[in-house]
Each structure stands twice: as structure tokens, then as C-alpha cells.
């Protein structure tokens, strides 16, 4: 009996001890968690990411700093789009260029707000009077791998760019016959003929400079990118993000932030929530309907409306007999009311446009609108063309603003008597079906290329000879092509601008491509973060001037 009572007491004690242990463990977890919740000084901590495998020192704080800012020198930003590869020479993904361009890999020159080119990798340059010889003086600098920046690197890079399968990279360089290093600091380009396109392109993707041999020696696709820019790209993890470390040996002024944590948050609602919760300091880009929430943000955050970049346009298949008659294409254009499309698709961020002119700041931008919204005229034209009972297939990407656009466009076209069969498909299937096989009648996309990309033999429908169309000459507009080639060879600038305006007008008159709006994306950041640059050549995210507001 005594033994039994003792055993019961022992069990009770053991249970009590266990309970105490559980309570202690839970308390410890809570203590740890609460410790973490009050840890709002993480920005001030030293960067926790591993240093890149380069010889150059990258993380040391400059000794000239008077007093450390309590907000620290680490910035956390998020972007909703992750690139499928980092190989900028074999992929057209904008998600590569957003963080890499200018920050990690610098182009030969830097595009300026006034439309001119400024120095970057090249300190200065000379162009011969006949426009056939370009001579560049290369600055003294160091790449992230410790190697010195020399003329040989520029020659190597431009030759590699010439071989890129991406049109905007190799295309402008196709007029370059030879690229030579005259000495360690001088590079000369000899052209087969004058080209207006080449010079601005060297401040863009066609001019990106990397160390000689680095494209073969490194896993570029996996993110081993080496340039001469102010940030070193490191620690990339798929679906997580990457780290940009300040390059202390940069030739120019050092950026304020020592570390920029770049995170991928694919859901834009989650991206905005992360910003509001303080997980990130800045959302690099918002597009589409999430922008509707932005006007309601409080003063702690600033919405930076970026310059319009990228034009949303309808494009019509040249292989469809139904669309061969210009009057039918004009009717489609007259049927489209751009304002409600802009409001519904991108919450009004941008402006409606009838012309495909990119960038919007181009000097030949004008208000020319050959076929404005006029449903009555659209019906007349359809009747004249004998196409009053027109039925067309509208192949649309099933993400972003495209489904919304398809609904409004279909509704507007049906109001003038066109029956629209909307087919929503995902992006890879869309690429295959539309660009690969040409199986569509009308489609819609947002693009950031210039009208040069629609040249015959390029990959664009319908003006260009599409891959799926083979040698079908009907898809190539000879008049447009002849004009395009002539424009590029004009050496006089004013004459060039006038010819560009004419080219854009011919393009709009054809109505194969019907622009709807020029899209403006937005950046949202903490209000005390300043130095957010506008887009210059692309949708790049220039990290160089970012700093806390003092």
C-alpha cells in the first residue's frame, strides 16, 4: 500500500517536473521570439551574406563616414519577377536587366536625360565626319574579379554582343565591320555604313562590357556576373533573391548602401504587404491592378510614378485573309476606346497612345492618331469592306493585365459588330502559338522595343517575317522596310528626326499594330529613401544614387 502511494507520488512529481520543463521550454521559445520581434535594428548590423569569391575588398565601411546612420547601410528591396536565367546575352528577360544593368555590368556609355550619351566605361569618344569610324577612350578601372579594365575587354565584349541571338543586342552591332584595340585604352569601331541606331545602343544592352574571357570562364546563366559597376552580384538563390555588395574599388563615386538585399516576392499583393509590414524598404516595381491600392498608402511611403515604359498594343496577323483589307484593320482601330482600357488594365498609370514610339521621350513623339475612337466610322468601314459579320480569334496571355484588356477589347469590338473569340493561354504557350507558329488572328502584348524591331526578317509579327511564317513575303511590308533602312543611314540629326516621324506615321497608318497605351509602372519606397532614379534606357533599377534622407 505504502509502495503504491509512493509510486503515485513519484508519478505526480515526474508529471509536475515535466510540466515545469514544458512551461520553461515554451517560455524560452517565447523569449527568443519576443527578442526577435523587438530586433528592429537589423539594418545596422554588418552584412550577413558571404562575400563574393573575388579578390577585391567589398564590404568594408568607408573610414570617412562621420557617424553611422541608425538606419544602417543595408537596403532590402523586392521585385515580383525572377529571370529564367542570368545570361543576358541569350535571354530577353527584363528581370535580368532590372538589377544588373548599370549596377553590376556597365555599358560603354550612359544614356542621359536629354537624349545624349554621357561617359561611363568610355571616358570620351570621337566619331568621324562620315559616321563610319567610332573611337573610344576607355577609362582606368577594375572589374569585380580584380582584373583591370582595358581596351581588350571592350573589344571582347562588343564581339560577344555581336553574336547574341537577341535582336536589340546584336542588331545595332551588325553594321560594325571591325572592332579593334588601338592600344590599352583606345578602341575603334569601323562601320560598313552610317547608323543612327548604333550610338544610343552602345549606352544600352549592346554596349555592356565584361572582362575578357569571363563569359566562358564563369557560369553566367547561374549568376556569376562580373562587371565594372558599383555593385558586386552575389549569393543568388532561386525563388529567394540575391545580394548586391558595394564594390569598394569602383572607379566612380561609391554608392551609399553597402548591401542591397534583393528579394523575389512574386505575388504583388504580398510584396506590398511586405513593404507595409517593414520586411522590405522598397518595392522595385508594381504593375497591373495592385497599383490601385497605392493611392491609399500613408505618408510613411512614397509612390514613385516612373516614366512610361513599354507600350501595350494589339497586333494583327498578316496571314489572316480577314485582316488583309486595310479598312478592316482601320475599323478595329476605330472601335477601340483607349481610356477605359488604360483605367482597367493599369489603374490609369500611363497614357493612351495611337503611335508606337518607344521611348515616349523620343523627339519624334507627336499626337498623330490616324484612327481615333469612332465606333460609327468603324461600322461604316466594316460595311464597305463587306466584313459586317466579322468573326476573329483573340489569343491573349492569361496573366497580368491581359485578361482584363481582352474583356474590354472584346466588348468594344462586339459593339461594332465584330464577334470575338477570346482564348486565354499562359505565357509559354502564347509565345509558342503566336510567335512560334503564328496561330492567331489578333493578340495583345506590352513591349518595350522600338519600331525597328518590326523590320523584315526580324522576329516580330506582322510587319516582320515571323519564324512561323517561313519565307512568306506577304508578312513583310516592303515600303516600311525600305523607309526603315533609309532612316538608319541618315547622318543629319534633324533629317533623321523628321524621317523617324514619317516612319512612325507609316507604321501607324498600316494598322497592323494598334497601340493602346504607354504603361507607367510605379516604385514604392519608404519616404525617407531618396535618390530613386527615373528609367533611362530600360526598366532598370539604378541603385547608385539611393540613400536615406538626412
Amino acid at each position, binding site marked *: 500500500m505504502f509502495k503504491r502511494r509512493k509510486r503515485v507520488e513519484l508519478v505526480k512529481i515526474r508529471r509536475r517536473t515535466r510540466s515545469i520543463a514544458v512551461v520553461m521550454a515554451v517560455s524560452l*521559445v517565447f523569449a*527568443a*521570439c519576443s*527578442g*526577435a*520581434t523587438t530586433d528592429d535594428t537589423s539594418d545596422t548590423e554588418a552584412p550577413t551574406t558571404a562575400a563574393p569569391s573575388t579578390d577585391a575588398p567589398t564590404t568594408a565601411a568607408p573610414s570617412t563616414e562621420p557617424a553611422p546612420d541608425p538606419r544602417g547601410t543595408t537596403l532590402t528591396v523586392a521585385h515580383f519577377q525572377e529571370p*529564367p*536565367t*542570368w545570361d543576358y546575352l*541569350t*535571354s*530577353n*528577360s527584363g528581370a535580368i536587366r532590372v538589377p544588373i544593368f548599370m549596377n553590376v555590368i556597365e555599358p560603354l556609355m550612359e544614356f542621359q536625360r536629354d537624349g545624349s550619351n554621357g561617359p561611363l566605361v568610355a571616358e570620351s569618344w570621337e566619331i568621324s565626319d562620315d559616321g563610319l569610324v567610332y573611337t573610344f577612350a576607355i577609362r582606368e578601372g577594375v572589374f569585380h574579379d580584380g582584373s583591370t579594365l582595358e581596351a581588350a575587354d571592350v573589344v571582347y565584349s562588343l564581339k560577344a554582343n555581336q553574336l547574341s*541571338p*537577341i*535582336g*536589340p543586342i546584336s*542588331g545595332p552591332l551588325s553594321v560594325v565591320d571591325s572592332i579593334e584595340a588601338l592600344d590599352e585604352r583606345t578602341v575603334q569601331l569601323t562601320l560598313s555604313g552610317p547608323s543612327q541606331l548604333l550610338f544610343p545602343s552602345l549606352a544600352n544592352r549592346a554596349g555592356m562590357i565584361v572582362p575578357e574571357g569571363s563569359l566562358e570562364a564563369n557560369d553566367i*546563366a*547561374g*549568376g556569376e556576373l562580373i562587371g565594372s559597376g558599383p555593385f558586386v552580384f552575389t549569393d543568388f*538563390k*532561386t*525563388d*529567394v533573391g540575391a545580394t548586391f555588395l558595394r564594390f569598394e574599388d569602383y572607379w566612380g563615386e561609391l554608392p551609399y548602401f553597402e548591401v542591397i538585399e534583393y*528579394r*523575389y*516576392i*512574386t*505575388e504583388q*499583393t*504580398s*510584396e506590398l*504587404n*511586405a513593404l*507595409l*509590414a*517593414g*520586411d522590405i524598404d522598397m518595392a522595385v516595381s508594381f504593375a497591373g491592378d495592385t497599383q490601385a491600392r497605392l493611392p491609399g498608402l500613408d505618408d510613411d511611403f512614397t509612390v514613385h510614378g516612373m516614366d512610361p515604359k513599354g507600350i501595350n498594343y494589339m497586333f494583327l496577323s498578316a496571314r489572316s485573309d480577314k485582316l488583309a483589307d486595310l479598312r478592316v484593320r482601320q475599323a478595329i482601330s476605330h472601335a477601340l476606346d483607349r481610356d477605359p482600357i488604360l483605367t482597367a488594365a493599369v489603374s490609369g498609370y500611363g497614357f493612351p497612345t495611337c503611335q508606337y514610339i518607344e521611348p515616349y521621350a523620343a523627339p519624334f513623339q507627336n499626337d498623330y492618331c490616324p484612327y481615333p475612337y469612332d465606333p460609327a466610322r468603324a461600322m461604316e468601314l466594316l460595311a464597305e469592306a463587306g466584313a459586317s459579320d466579322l468573326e476573329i480569334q483573340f489569343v491573349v496571355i492569361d496573366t497580368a493585365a491581359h485578361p482584363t484588356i481582352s474583356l474590354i477589347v472584346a466588348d468594344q469590338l462586339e459593339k461594332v459588330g465584330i464577334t470575338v473569340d477570346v482564348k486565354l*493561354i*499562359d*505565357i*509559354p*504557350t*502564347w*509565345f*509558342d*502559338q503566336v*510567335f*512560334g507558329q503564328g496561330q492567331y488572328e489578333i493578340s495583345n*502584348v506590352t*513591349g518595350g*522595343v522600338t519600331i525597328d*524591331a518590326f523590320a523584315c*526578317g*526580324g*522576329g*516580330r509579327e506582322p510587319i516582320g*517575317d515571323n*519564324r512561323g511564317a517561313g519565307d512568306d513575303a506577304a508578312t513583310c511590308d516592303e515600303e516600311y522596310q525600305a523607309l526603315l533602312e533609309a532612316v538608319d543611314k541618315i547622318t543629319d540629326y534633324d533629317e533623321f528626326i523628321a524621317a523617324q516621324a514619317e516612319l512612325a506615321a507609316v507604321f501607324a497608318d498600316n494598322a497592323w499594330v494598334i497601340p493602346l497605351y504607354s504603361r507607367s509602372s510605379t516604385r514604392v519606397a519608404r519616404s525617407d529613401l531618396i535618390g530613386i532614379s527615373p528609367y533611362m534606357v530600360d526598366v532598370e533599377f539604378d541603385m547608385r544614387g539611393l540613400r536615406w534622407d538626412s
Partner: protein
Amino acid sequence: MQRLILKSGLTLLVSALFGSVLVFALLRLLGGDIAQLLLGDEAVPGAVEALQLELGLNDPAYLQYWNWLSGLATGDLGTSYGIGYDIFDQIRIRIVPTVFLAVGTMIISVPLALILGSYAAIHVRQRRSVFVDVGAQIGLAIPAFWAGLLLVLLFAVKLGWFPATGWVSPSEDLSGFFRAITLPITALVLGRTAVMTRYARSSMIDVMGEDYILCARSRGRTLRGAALRHGLRNASIPLVTVGILQFGSLMVGAVVIENVFAIPGMGRLLVTGVAGREVIVVQSLVFVFLLMILILNFLLDILYGILDPRILDKPVRT
């Protein structure tokens, strides 16, 4: 028992093989390829075809299937087309957050469901059981992603107690790990608990009508005492099935929550893979999911054999 293991194991193998063919074939029907996607709409003529050839996308289907299957068997699935990461390594890394999410959810959901279900069953004809029933209905009706967004708005944006997104490995920072995983698990727990509570309640009500409960009560046990002492264990048995199936669906279905909370798990890899037409990544992931479900079912068969020896006595059909 040996016969049962053999039979279930054989079923698993045949199903896995059939599943691999199905997964492979379905992905070929998806349309689009990574060459087109990588190069985009600004590729020079012929570039897409050249890349397709380089990546082996034009190889005969049987060769592609064989290469993939042998890769699965040897643990060498090659590298992804785009970024070039090792696919097997990536799956190995990505399975960790997903397993944490699924296991964490089950650890909370199962006991909670048992408690709530039993409570509702014991008080079945009383008003207080209605609260559990209504709560379970609401839990069932709320999608996990929506619950996740609401939780984020309250606990991350308004109160700032937890991060809105992200993943922290427990080996790097334990408290950070708990903070990061709390909201995603809570979002998942709501729905899973609701499902299992209803099962537990129904099972407990059945058990409470059994003779041995009547017997226990006639020996002087209270209703609650009889339920806890004799009912709970028996009522748990159907929950094993539901629990295991729920675990499987959690592993597969965590994709939505992983996207909402930007957790780099298997689901997110799957979404990225599908969007990027990384066919080997996608078919390997889908096969891993399939294999997990098959293995869980296999374990369930064995567990049934242990729990209910009558199953072992049944003759095996050949």
C-alpha cells in the same frame, strides 16, 4: 504481414511507373518551350530552333523519358535549362520548408481536431457544440491563401508581430524560423483542423454509441471520463487515414501558401518551373509528389494491417 507488404509494395511500384509515364506525357501536351521563352520576342531568326536543338528539346520522346527515368533512379536529373541549377539538389533543398509547413500544420491540427471534435461529440445535443460546428464550417469555407492574407494584414502589417513574407532556416536562426513560419502554418491549420474536427466529431459520436462506452458508464464513469478513457483512442483510428491523406494534400497543396508568404518550397519551385517551362524540374517535382502520396498510402495499408489484424487474414488476390 509479409504478403501485405509485398502486395502493397508491388502496387506502389506499378503505380509509380504508370504515374511517371503519365506525368511525362502530360507535360509534353502543355505546349510552349523554354527556348522560345528564354529568347522572347526579340530573337534573331533561327535562334529559337538552334537553342531547342542545343537543349535537346527535339530529341525523341522515348529518349527524353528514358534519360529522365534513369536520372531519377541514379539521383542525377541534370541541370535546369535556364539558371542551370542541379535539379536533384534543388528538390532536396526545397523539400525542407514544405515538410516543415506540412508537419507543423499536422502537429497542431491533429490534437486540436481531436479535442474540438470530441468536445462537440460529447456535447452533441447542446448549444455549445454548435460553436465548434460553426467554427469548423467557417474554417472549411475560408481558402488558405485568403486566411493567410488576412493574418498578414492583422499580425504583420497592423501589429508587426510577424514578418509578412520570407523563410528563415531553423539552423540559421531558430527564433526567426518560428516567426517566419507562424502565420503560414496558422493559415493552413485553420482549414485542416476544420476538416479533421468534423471527422473526429462524427467518429466520436459513433464510438459513443458503442456497447463498451455504455458498459464503462454503467461501471460509474462519467460521460466525459468514458469518452476520454475508452472513446478517444477508438475514435482516433479513422483520423489516422484522414490525417495521412491530409498530410499528402498539404505537401502538394502548400503551393498557394508558399506563394503568398514567398517561401521557397517545392510548391514555389513547381510554379516557377511551370511558368518557365522547365519540364524536367516540373515532371520531377510532380513525380516526387506522386511518390509521396503513394508511399503514404503504402504506409496506410501497413498501418491498417497492424491496427486491424483481420485485414491480414484476407486472402491475397492474384
